[in-house]
């Protein structure tokens, strides 16, 4: 039989032996045994389609984590004299939640101020007395990068979120903002609003519905697959064998040339062993992932940051965290580092820092009645900044998961988590 190079590669790569999973009890004396992984097929149901109920817009003209679309900063647009816009229309646009959150998401403004304004940006309630020219305000909204290269503010005009006429109306509205903000209580004021704290008992099955998935995972663990094998065949005593395994995930997988987390590992390892096809984002995959992470509860996250492959992945991941994405032109660091938008409010939502965000995944989302693994969380972040998401298990998500996990090393795992 004649094979060309790529066929030969496929053949060689069809099954891989990794050193990522713990050996079974009977073989523990010999140290760690290689784990088999299936490598040929995607680990998700392809071709990838966005989840039902999510925004349907495609933002292909803007950057994603995989593909950078250049976003040039244009020249200052000349405005002769003063801008005569409609302040009423401008107010409506400034408060419009359907346009990328609009001004109120980050700025205090309005007479009266609508409920729960954010504080990522400056308080603009007395903006009219700052003495800015109309041309300056117009251009700052159109593309603030011209004036402030370090800004996190989206280029509303340059990225076509608002038209020139609409921005003129917003300028007219800002010119009416003449009195300093007064809040009726500490909750309304974003600078005094208490930081939200999750106090629900996430391991109480009457509180957290994902505990049912943990039990389902436990059941799947000992269920025989098409190859008449179950997880138990090789890994008896899961409580002991998997006491700390998931705390060290994700890992770089040389056969796949990317970082994979618990979820993709489950898919590929099950295909190569029990014969089950637990696609990423399926109920079965999530249940097993919850169960394997649940077994590590109380363990500190302990992801390797020293090996050569992981150092390279962290370098790539750090670059990705700083990459501007989507129509809103936001990088992860823009919203989740304290130097920028982190530890502040966008409307009623608190933007947390990177540390503290990883130890509870997969997590139950009470606002959605769904279990979200970290891939789905990243996908939602992408869609929120109006950037097309990548399929689960994309190498970019792996690099980010690894980078964030290393930043979270030492945090005690508590899975399944529970969040709004």
């Amino acid at each position, binding site marked *: 039989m004649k094979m060309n190079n790529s066929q030969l590669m496929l053949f060689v790569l069809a099954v891989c032996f990794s050193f990522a999973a713990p050996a079974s009890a009977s073989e523990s004396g010999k140290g760690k045994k290689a784990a088999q992984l299936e490598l040929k097929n995607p680990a998700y149901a392809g071709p990838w389609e966005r989840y039902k109920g999510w925004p349907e817009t495609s933002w292909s003209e803007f950057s994603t984590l995989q593909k950078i679309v250049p976003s040039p900063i244009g020249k200052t647009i000349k405005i002769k004299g003063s801008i005569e816009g409609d302040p009423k229309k401008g107010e409506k646009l400034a408060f419009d939640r359907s346009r990328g959150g609009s001004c109120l998401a980050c700025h205090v403004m309005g007479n009266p101020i609508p409920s729960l304004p954010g504080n990522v940006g400056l308080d603009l309630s007395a903006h009219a007395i700052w003495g800015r020219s109309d041309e300056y305000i117009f251009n700052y909204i159109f593309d603030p990068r011209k004036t402030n290269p370090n800004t996190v503010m989206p280029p509303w005009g340059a990225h076509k979120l608002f038209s020139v006429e609409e921005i003129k109306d917003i300028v007219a509205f800002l010119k009416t903002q003449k009195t300093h903000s007064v809040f009726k209580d500490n909750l309304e004021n974003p600078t005094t609003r208490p930081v939200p704290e999750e106090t629900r008992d996430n391991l109480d*099955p*009457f509180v957290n*519905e994902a505990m*049912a998935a943990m*039990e*389902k995972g436990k*059941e799947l663990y000992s269920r025989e697959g098409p190859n008449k094998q179950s997880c138990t065949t090789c890994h008896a005593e899961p409580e002991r064998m998997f006491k700390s395994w998931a705390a060290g995930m994700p890992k770089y997988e040389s056969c796949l040339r990317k970082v994979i987390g618990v979820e993709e590992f489950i898919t590929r390892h099950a295909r190569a062993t029990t014969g089950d096809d637990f696609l990423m984002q399926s109920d079965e995959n999530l249940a097993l992932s919850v169960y394997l992470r649940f077994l590590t509860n109380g363990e500190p996250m302990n992801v390797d940051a020293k090996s050569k492959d992981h150092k390279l992945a962290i370098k790539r991941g750090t670059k990705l965290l700083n990459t501007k994405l989507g129509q809103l032109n936001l990088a992860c660091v823009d919203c989740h580092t304290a130097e920028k938008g982190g530890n502040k409010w966008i409307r009623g939502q608190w933007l947390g820092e990177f540390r503290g965000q990883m130890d509870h995944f997969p997590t139950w989302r009470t606002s959605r*009645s769904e279990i979200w693994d970290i891939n789905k969380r990243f996908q939602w972040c992408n869609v929120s900044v109006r950037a097309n998401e990548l399929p689960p298990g994309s190498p970019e998500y792996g690099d980010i998961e690894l980078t964030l996990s290393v930043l979270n090393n030492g945090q005690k795992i508590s899975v399944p988590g529970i969040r709004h």
Partner: protein
Amino acid sequence: MAEEMKMRATLQGDITDVKVRMNHIMETGARKDPKTGKLIPPHFIDQVVATLNGKTVLDAQWGIAISRNPFIGFKVKGAKVGDKIVVNAVDNLGTKFSGEVAVAAR
């Protein structure tokens, strides 16, 4: 098979707080299978009866508006530590489920 029902009953003063979580798919019959495009047949719990030492304390008729893996919480007066609370449920296909728990001190 995971437990059909998970129950907890705790005595708080004179009142017993009962919590029940049932494992059930609760199909409405109005949902389509995304792969085949065909309607998924209805399969939901339609009767729930709770008893305290054999005496009915709650009798409910459920329908398709109840969520998957339903949760029900209720309070009963007059129970003592060790009393038996039983919940019996029947779905539209006639399958019976039950769970029981002894009242515990807080």
